[in-house]
């Protein structure tokens, strides 16, 4: 029997605007990407000093996850090992890759920084969300040229329907060359406050809105 799963909260961050569950909660269209993310962090009075150690991609993912889960936390009866984090993007960690490359190509000071190098992997942002929320389940980082609602919804529904996971934090987090775009959402079997059916059409509707 085909089972229905639900999108119980979502957060969009793009073009100087942040919306949670469809409502705009912060706007500042004049700031460049990195400054915008930092200004939102301050605006919402998030207190997590590790934020400043993160690269821009992880900061963006952290911000979106934090705002979304504050508004609509994952049900407490989900064990840490049953919650998955499955996220994708287009540019992988290229923003930080280029920073690392600049450092090691500098003839006068070509010593790499471990604090930069560790962020040359896109899945570090999954680690950051996992640490913040004590989430220990499945994790996978995919790379697509654009957000693939068909693949993401199909795969996550199959994981939920086969009981491999109980809940998933999913979405798209991309940051490269002044452009940024985040769309995070939670998928659970139970219908939450928002209770949108989790399928490709709904994801496309929300993301393209």
């Amino acid at each position, binding site marked *: 029997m085909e089972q229905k799963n639900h999108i119980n909260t979502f957060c969009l961050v793009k073009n100087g605007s942040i919306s949670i569950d469809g409502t705009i909660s912060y706007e500042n269209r004049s700031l460049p990407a990195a400054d915008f993310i930092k200004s939102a962090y301050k605006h919402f009075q998030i207190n997590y000093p590790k934020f400043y150690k993160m690269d821009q991609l992880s900061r963006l993912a952290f911000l979106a996850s934090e705002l979304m889960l504050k508004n609509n936390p994952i049900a407490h009866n989900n064990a840490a090992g049953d919650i998955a984090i499955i996220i994708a993007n287009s540019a992988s960690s290229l923003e930080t890759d280029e920073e690392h490359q600049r450092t*090691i190509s500098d003839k006068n000071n070509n010593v790499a920084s471990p604090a930069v190098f560790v962020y040359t992997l896109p899945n570090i942002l999954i680690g950051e969300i996992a640490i913040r929320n004590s989430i220990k389940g499945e*994790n996978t980082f995919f790379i697509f040229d654009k957000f693939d609602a068909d693949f993401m919804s199909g795969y996550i529904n199959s994981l939920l329907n086969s009981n491999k996971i109980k809940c998933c934090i999913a979405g798209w987090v991309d940051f490269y060359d002044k452009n940024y775009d985040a769309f995070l959402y939670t998928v659970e079997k139970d219908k939450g406050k928002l209770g949108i059916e989790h399928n490709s059409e709904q994801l496309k509707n929300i993301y393209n809105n």
Partner: protein
Amino acid sequence: MEEEEFNNLKSQAYILADNIISPLGFSSSENFEQLKKMQTGVKRIIDPNLSVEPLFAGIVDTLKLDIEFQKLNTQNEFTRLEKMVILSVTDCLNQNQHIDIQSPKTLIILSTTKGNIDLLESDDSSKFDKKRVYLWETANVIGRYFNNPNQPIVISNACISGVLAIVLGKRLLEENQYDTIIVSGADVLSHFVVSGFQSFKAISSEIAKPYDTKRDGISLGEGCGTIVLSNSIQKVINKQEQLIVKGGASSNDANHISGPSRTGEGMILAINKTLTESNMLPTEVDYISGHGTATLYNDDMESLAISDSKLDKVPMNSLKSYFGHTLGAAGLIESIIGLHSMRENTLIGTYNYSELGVTMPINIIKKTQPAKVNNFLKTAAGFGGCNAAVFFQKVQNN
């Protein structure tokens, strides 16, 4: 329907073909022959383009790669990484005529941590569009070479990418949208990667010594591994003996982004879920192909996880001292060696290992030896606190 009954009805993920491109050879069997003789591909390298200091690493011979690639007679330009993947997949297609890579029911999964990252600094970069450093474009180039009609799926999840890609392949086969899945994992050595691991002071001053008292870090490597999976037993060449992917899982330590967990809890979770899905008790496992990077903390963490999972008596090795750490290729290459261990009932000794030097007693294989190998567990761990495991089994028809 009872769960067990349901599992029996589910389609299996049969292995149709496999290939390894490494410093030890350009086919799985060449590689396995070298490992049986305990010959390593890791050497002392002096190459200022990679590292100011001499370096122990596993490097694929560029001349050999180019000679082999020229035999394919293709006009287009390909990067080093793409050449490895194309050669690796081509060898798989040659092994089994039932694999139809142009079919809409065939999907390619690429596992890579850094893809064509060497283009950021190489003289070759002018030959290629800037787009080529995007991992999805690398995968598209490979898909187009083979005229595969589907958009390839790319996994880039640090050092567990390869194991995740195999597990994903098995799961997608169960959904029946595809009947054949080609899982390829590749990474190339670059100044980018070497300098990064050097900054972590994670590189061994000699060839890596997994699980040993004298271990002092990793050896890096490069290469490609490919496994072709299918849900159709008709496509398996050896009808007497089929190798299948039985189960797999991943987890996160939720502890630290660059250091292994002190407890092994995340790895334990991935192993337990994998064995449960595979209907296996720890006592039934014949062999463990470990992660064994030969850093102090990783190998200690693994010993805790293996011991806590009651797998401490199971023969276990690490292949990192043969290939180096090949990042996105490691899960594929090391799993393929395990497949050949099952086929030949031979366990490979851990090169450069002499005395156990990890927190908990585990059963490290010292010398290559004959043994009944009907199944094995492959584990992996990586930056970002990620862990993964996959279980393979041999099914014999009498």
